[in-house]
């Protein structure tokens, strides 16, 4: 038997947590991800299948939504990312594919991404230096893609002005984490 040890995107055996005065950056490695692309001409059927089988209403552009154990954010026209707890939904992509059948294309995405949850009173001061999204004008439920440290990252607003999730490419997790830390250090 192999004895393999799971590591987080930053390479640790447990998620990295960084504390600042008024800011908490925590690596979140317990999310399963799968993307859904609705097939051309089958968009309404795809959304209906996800809603009836997974209990999740797929969100409008630049939004995220939640339904039962699942959460989804809009990535592009007729394209969404579905997110769920990894421990309970390790086979998320298989289950989503079963739900949508031939009206959508599903790709396993869990190991393609890293996620950092950024929260605290100074969070907006940090993000205004990190990316050109106008998060101060946003509200909970917004989901944008933006360039952070030259990386295409999703920024989800979980609580307006207080808690955000940054999802970036896993292979650049170290660079993204470095950008978050250096920005936090320069602000705080």
């Amino acid at each position, binding site marked *: 038997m192999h004895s393999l040890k799971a590591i987080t995107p930053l390479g640790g055996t447990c998620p990295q947590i960084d504390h600042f005065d008024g800011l908490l950056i925590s690596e979140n490695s317990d999310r399963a991800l799968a993307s859904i692309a609705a097939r*051309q001409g089958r968009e309404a059927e795809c959304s209906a299948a996800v809603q009836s089988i997974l209990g999740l209403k797929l969100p409008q*552009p*630049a939004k995220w939504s939640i339904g039962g154990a699942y959460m989804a954010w*809009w*990535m*592009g*026209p007729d*394209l969404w990312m579905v997110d769920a707890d990894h421990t309970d939904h390790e086979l998320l992509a298989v289950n989503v594919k079963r739900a949508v059948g031939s009206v959508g294309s599903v790709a396993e995405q869990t190991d393609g991404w890293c996620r950092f949850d950024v929260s605290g009173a100074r969070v907006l001061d940090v993000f205004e230096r990190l990316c*050109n999204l106008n998060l101060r004008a946003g509200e909970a439920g917004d989901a*944008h*893609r*933006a*360039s952070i440290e030259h990386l*295409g990252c999703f920024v989800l607003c979980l609580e307006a002005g207080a808690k955000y999730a940054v999802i970036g490419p896993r292979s650049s997790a170290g660079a993204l984490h470095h950008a978050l830390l250096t920005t936090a250090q320069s602000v705080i």
Partner: protein
Amino acid sequence: MIINHPILGPRDAQEFTYLGDAALIDRPDWQADNAAEAFHDYLYLRDNPAGEHRELWFHEQGDRSWLVVTRNTVTHDILNVELARDVARARGRRK
């Protein structure tokens, strides 16, 4: 420069990459009798107008959609922005 994305609203031009003339949407029929000549023109001949120009832009650091941006090459005014897939479908393309 700000590009007014048809779905996401005004976004900074640094999020986009430029491909070229939107005439690239009209790919010639490879089975036509004059296919070789049509592909030569498609590949090498470009209009270079001083004025309104329709261009393909890619929202690389955003929702990764292709756009047709109508831009005035003299003033850099952006006059219209459409989803390229809507333009292509309106011109009879299936994909």
